[in-house]
């Protein structure tokens, strides 16, 4: 058994694909039409054969209230690793991405939190500068 996929619940797959590729810089790996929705995944260009992120529709009512409750308390359910949180925050802010937490060092990691425009808060993290 291996872990090759992780998911993020998105309110609109087309909008999510645009944000996760054009803004964040991931690349589309699979888009398989499945009726109303698609099996839609993206990967990091740094690891095209690595873990795929599934852009999963949040059409179940429970998924939406789950996301709203997390967002209200500022909780990112999903986190990505970057080389330099400060640099990534500067790049994404310039692209219009809204951060609910600027880069902050907490113990061994530096983290920041942004809004993915699809109903989620996402944390980016890197090891704190020594």
């Amino acid at each position, binding site marked *: 058994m291996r872990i090759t996929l992780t998911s993020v619940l998105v309110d609109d797959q087309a909008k999510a694909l645009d944000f996760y590729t054009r803004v964040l810089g991931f690349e589309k790996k699979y888009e398989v039409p499945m009726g109303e929705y698609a099996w839609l995944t993206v990967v990091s260009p740094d690891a095209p054969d690595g873990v795929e992120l599934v852009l999963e529709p949040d059409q179940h009512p429970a998924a939406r209230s789950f996301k709203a409750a997390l*967002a*209200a308390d*500022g*909780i990112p359910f999903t986190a990505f690793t970057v080389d330099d949180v400060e640099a990534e925050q500067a790049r994404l802010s310039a692209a219009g991405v809204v951060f*609910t*937490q600027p880069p902050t060092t*907490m*113990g061994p990691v530096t983290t920041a939190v942004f809004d993915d425009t699809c109903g989620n*808060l996402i944390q980016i993290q890197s090891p704190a500068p020594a």
Partner: protein
Amino acid sequence: MPIVEVMDDADAVFKALADRTRRALLDALAERDGQTLFELCARMASTHGLTSSRQAISQHLDVLEGAALVHRRREGRYTFHDLDTTPLTPLRERWRRPDERTPR
């Protein structure tokens, strides 16, 4: 005659300050306003060594808000917390001797 407990503003401030976690929350907000509950919880755990639950932290913030030391600000889907030190001013002034009082 029973003592009737009526909380005035000073009571609310002293009660709010009489707790280590609440003081640590004020320390965290003094570093930067506009923090979410998530960030405050993370700071409590990582830099203050306090392992209170999210619910407990939220209740501490209620007490701080009751004393007007913290304000919750809603922006869209998010809630941010800001520090307000205005309620501390009367405490500073209260026990100054006449010759120490700030000129008005």
